């Protein structure tokens, strides 16, 4: 039975998944929350994945989290009212590819499954027709879909480049693996609920949460569609897709020693001594090039993140996934109603820190918009991260960002999950 008014409190449970995201939002429509009847509870899961589990995690860590989610849902109506998967990176959805975890989550019969518009299976990701006949959005989706394959190829190449440039190749491996297609998880997500329960959202669209969260106003602030984004010209997108097609399609990518180009002219021995200095340089050039390619892929997928804003009375919760500046730019600078959005953002009381605290996911303009920062009791920041996993330039979490969060908010990080525990709760009274 539907509650007749808004929730009285919200509990945000941040599971310690290492380098990844997994949040269970529980909305309680009576006070105190412990006494809420099953009909007075709503549960929303936002992401469930990791790139690297915490050191302390025992075998079956994900299973334990899944069971905890199930228990929480069973206190209510025995189901997950909504599932949000912000984007396709493994650190946000790997759990859905796990053969033991997935059945549990599927068993919770999500009432609505929310994903970015780029995941809509109706958009052909394997179209073979000429690019000219595809719309800009279809082309973009195909480009995103190709990226997993590209990442795979690039990773293979990285293997023989490592002797010349190990540090770059380590970064390459990290980012490349994150961008692998996660095919199982993606397929399982499509099957986790009947098609009519899936919502593929974009800036300004209905989220689908209105149907299950009474008294909660939700707003989708990203990602924008190509049609919405005036600065992302359609032709440019096609150029970009075409560029990636060229990168992708040479047979023999990642196949050392198969000499696909001119096998008869290939030397059978190692390069002669006089050429070795330059061969090493060429390997370094290539590894840097691959890293740049993978970074581009990574950024493109991050920028498909669903950005969700929940308004409950005077409380405002912001969950931006891994959105980077390209995604945020639309809501902050380009949208027709950007002033109204900025006004909403000004009132944020809980901010899930974007992209595990990396350097490019909390734009200054966004941070400047939060009017509650500096009032620690009214402003909470929540970060799910793990130091030492990412080895590239610019550490994650970024020290400067963490210092700012600590100074201007009640800062909670999954890294500080008490020993023996596997989650932390933030309670918000509406």
């Amino acid at each position: 039975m539907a509650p007749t008014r808004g929730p009285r409190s919200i509990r945000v449970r941040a599971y310690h998944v290492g380098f990844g995201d997994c949040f269970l939002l529980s909305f309680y429509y009576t006070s105190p929350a412990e006494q809420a009847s099953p009909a007075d509870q709503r549960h929303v899961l936002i992401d469930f994945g990791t790139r690297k589990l915490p050191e302390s995690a025992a075998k079956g860590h994900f299973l334990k989290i899944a069971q905890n989610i199930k228990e929480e849902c069973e206190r209510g109506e025995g189901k997950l009212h909504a599932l949000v998967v912000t984007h396709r990176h493994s650190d946000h959805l790997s759990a859905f590819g796990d053969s033991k975890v997935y059945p549990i989550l599927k068993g919770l019969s999500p009432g609505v499954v929310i994903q970015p518009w780029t995941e809509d299976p109706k958009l052909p990701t394997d179209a073979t027709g000429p690019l000219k006949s595809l719309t800009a959005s279809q082309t973009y989706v195909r480009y995103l879909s190709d990226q997993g394959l590209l990442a795979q190829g690039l990773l293979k190449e990285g293997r023989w480049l490592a002797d010349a440039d190990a540090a770059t190749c380590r970064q390459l491996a990290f980012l490349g693996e994150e961008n692998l297609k996660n095919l199982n998880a993606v397929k399982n997500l499509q099957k986790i609920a009947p098609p009519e329960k899936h919502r593929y959202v974009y800036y300004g669209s209905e989220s689908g949460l209105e149907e299950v969260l009474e008294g909660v106003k939700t707003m989708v602030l990203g990602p924008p569609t190509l049609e919405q984004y005036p600065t992302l010209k359609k032709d440019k997108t096609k150029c970009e897709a075409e560029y990636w097609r060229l990168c992708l399609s040479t047979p023999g990518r990642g196949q050392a020693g198969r000499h696909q180009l001119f096998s008869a002219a290939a030397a059978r021995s190692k390069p002669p001594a006089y050429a070795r200095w330059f061969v090493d340089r060429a390997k370094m050039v290539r590894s840097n090039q691959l890293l740049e390619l993978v970074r581009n892929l990574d950024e493109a997928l991050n920028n498909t993140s669903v950005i969700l804003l929940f308004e409950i009375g005077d409380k405002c919760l912001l969950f931006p996934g891994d959105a980077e500046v390209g995604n945020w730019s639309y809501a902050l600078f380009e949208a027709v109603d950007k002033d109204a959005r900025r006004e909403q953002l000004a009132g944020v009381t809980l901010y899930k820190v974007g992209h595990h605290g990396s350097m490019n996911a909390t734009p200054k303009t966004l941070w400047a918009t939060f009017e509650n920062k500096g009032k620690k009791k009214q402003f909470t920041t929540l970060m799910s991260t793990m130091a030492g996993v990412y080895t590239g330039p610019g550490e994650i979490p970024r020290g400067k960002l963490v210092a700012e969060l600590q100074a201007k908010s009640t800062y909670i990080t999954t890294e500080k999950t008490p020993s023996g525990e596997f989650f932390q709760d933030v309670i918000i009274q509406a």
Partner: protein
Amino acid sequence: MARPLPPLTQSFTIIAQDPSVRYKGRILTSEVEVPAEKLNHGPWGYRVHVVDYDASTDTFYRPVAYKTGRRQTIRDPFKESSNRDRLTDPRFHAQNAYAIVMRILARFEFALGRRVGWSFKRHQLKIAPHAFQDANAFYSRQDEGLFFGYFPGRTGTVFSCLSHDVVAHETTHALLDGLRELYMVPSSPDQAAFHEGFADIVALLSVFSLKEIVKAGLALGGKGERRTVIRAPKRSGQGTLISRERLTIQSLRRSVLLSLAEQMGKEMSVPQGQALRQSAKLTPSRRYIENADFREPHRRGEVLVAAVLNAFLRVWIARLRPLGEITPGYLSLERVVEEGATAADHLLTICIRAIDYCPPVHITFGDFLSAVLTADEEACPDDSRFGYRKCLLRSFESYGIRPASPQITWMRATRLLEHERVHFDPLKQDPDELFHFIWENRKALRLCDGVFTGVVSLRPSVRRGPDGFVLQETVAEYVQIASLKASDLRRRLKIRPPEDMPLDTPVTLYGGGTLVLDEWGNVKYHIRNRLDHATLQEQRLKYLWESGFFAGQAAGLRRFAQLHRMRAVGKRVRATEGWI
């Protein structure tokens, strides 16, 4: 009996444009003359070393082996090969890249009258003709080489090392870097664009010396144009004729000769079928320079290319006017091509020589225009016949580019400098002695006090003067560098940092000048950009701040690699956004 002198040049077959440009069904090839040398396997010469390693498949290809014949000449092993064999033999690809690089190098040395060095310490530029699988090719100073990628096209693999334009373009980057190494430092939109535009100018104008190719290019016409070449009446003895209709600026702009990298463009562009760049088609407008879309270096560089190419077309057309018609409405194709080659050759020489008259850092298109006009006036004071300088000035102005010098050409130095403590001969050869001279005259030269100052280069420049005598000048560059925090800018140099730049941001400022010394060691020209010029430095800082340089967006030693990819994917960053 005296031993005969060995030849100074040797010839190699190259693909004159790229494999996609064909005439009567055949790929256009040409035999080009390059400086003769005792080549090692590779080809591996005294300035260029081809190392054919493919990092995408971890494959090293066996180098071309050369035999030295009588009179110490090298026989081109691919002279008699079919085009099919050439396309499928990586050793031909290696030789093709080598020959084009050497040809462009020789062209620079001819224009400047001296050896032109690379910007790194070693003598040989390395070339990787099949460096990786990527629709990219670039010069990397750090790696002392040119890297050419390959990628799958619709009708087979596209090799960037087989594109004359691409190889010439990348070679020019390397040569320009050797002549003005500070043009790679972050500066204004013009400086980044200048590298790209200048490389395109050299690539396009250098094709005109391949007369057979120009003939074929003219015969091919532009897209959608009808055939305009006919056979001359036998009695005229003129061979092939070309219609005057074909020889208008509008028609020539569309020519394949003025399009850059046809094959790569066709494969990468959407809609397909276009060359990578067709700058000559850019309609004159004064608005490009201020237009935000023309801030991307390649795009902005096109404005410079358009200005030079349209000046070239005007001169070419002017040179054709006096030619008599063989039959009504038709000119001798041979003569048309000759006039084109002469005009292109002269313009190319002016453009290359102008580099000696450019400031060492922070070049703008206006600086280049003043340098071009000064360089040509020095070499050919009488411009009345074909009006090269007038055409250049008009063409540049039609694209909104005004000369940097208020007098159009650079003003001659008039200030008397002190020579008492320096010696004449070392001043022209020894950077320490030149620095001594600068130091003694630092007030007269109005150098910024209290910052690092150093001599970057000291080079002789030899050319024939207007009176027919050989003229020896000396071109020297000095640089001034200040590294400081944004907070110190106002206090120390009266420069305002960009509004929202954090005051602890480290900032490096550059300034410097080019001193052109006459044959007596007197300063003839002092072309400079002062380090403490507050207005210009503020503009540069604002541009760099807004384009994300300080957030690490534009940094990186392999700048051209990154730049080319950013352009290929049409990527732009939100300029003013930063992260906490």
